[in-house]
């Protein structure tokens, strides 16, 4: 599984590099630009991982505050800053999911409000709920791979770096996730 793939080519220069240096020297505007570039994605990733508005907001907040604390130690060139952000966010999500499994029955969770978009029809809502249920039923690594690549548009190489796996392993996770989803949704 190593055919030519432009989506897995060498990463371009980190678009955050200049702002990281400025923010590390106390430039709040530079940090605000970093937040603006990534907040929606990190929030969306946490929201989809946790299916809880409150938890997603807390994870996003914690991710950026950790990032802020690490800015002076950031070494450019190793990996993209966004890769590191995704990794921190996913680790925080994993911690919360683990705690949930240990402590709270799933039915008691404050899950995202399904009626958040009033313009949706009942059928659309039911469909969305089925898809999100199927996503939640995926094994964690498969779900993370799918969230990063399909929903966040990360390249295979970037997603593999976030998850700490090879591109081949990432592709395998994606293919298995899609297969399971197809089976799950076709079954309903």
């Amino acid at each position: 599984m190593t055919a030519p793939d432009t989506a897995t080519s060498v990463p371009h220069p980190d678009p955050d590099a200049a702002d990281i240096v400025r923010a590390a020297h106390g430039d709040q505007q530079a940090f605000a630009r970093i937040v603006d570039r990534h907040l929606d994605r990190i929030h969306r990733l946490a929201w989809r991982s946790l299916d809880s508005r409150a938890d997603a907001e807390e994870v996003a907040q914690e991710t950026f505050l950790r990032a802020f604390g690490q800015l002076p130690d950031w070494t450019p060139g190793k990996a993209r800053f966004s890769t590191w952000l995704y990794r921190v966010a996913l680790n925080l999500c994993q911690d919360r999911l683990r705690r949930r499994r240990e402590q709270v029955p799933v039915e008691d969770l404050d899950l995202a409000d399904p009626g958040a978009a009033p313009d949706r029809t009942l059928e659309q809502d039911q469909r969305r709920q089925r898809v999100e249920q199927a996503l939640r039923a995926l094994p964690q690594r498969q779900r993370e791979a799918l969230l990063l690549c399909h929903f966040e548009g990360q390249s295979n190489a970037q997603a593999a770096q976030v998850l700490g796996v090879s591109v081949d392993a990432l592709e395998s996770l994606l293919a298995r996730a899609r297969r399971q989803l197809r089976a799950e949704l076709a079954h309903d």
Partner: protein
Amino acid sequence: MKRPISPSRRDELLAIHGADPAHWPADARALLAECDPHQLAAEAQLDDWLASSSAPPAPAALRAAILMQAAAAARAAPPLPRNNLRDALLWLWQELGGARLAAPAFALALVAGLTLGGGLSPLLHQPEASVEDVLSLAQIDERYLALNP
């Protein structure tokens, strides 16, 4: 030069990325047209399902909270650049008050050092015993008689 993508790899790409060309590697997108129509339709249906899952954007209050907390953290502990020695020295210089405070302090310390060094120098560097001293010693102390000419 890149090798052409084999039919089995093309099918793998369909299973990995689905039927949306936007998710495919740019140099393989043309191969979508060669995929099995049934497989393609099944993957397109899954893409359609996944598209129904939408996440809300981050609320503006969240952005404000993050920036406020970062500003508070910066006030509590100003960031220390540690990526290189130059940055660390620059940071230390600024922390010490820069040219306004540190420069006069360093100048004062330098002057004090030179003055003290100059004043103590005669005390620290006593001249070595002269021949006359040895001769005088020989005259007054029997143990050094042999030195007496």
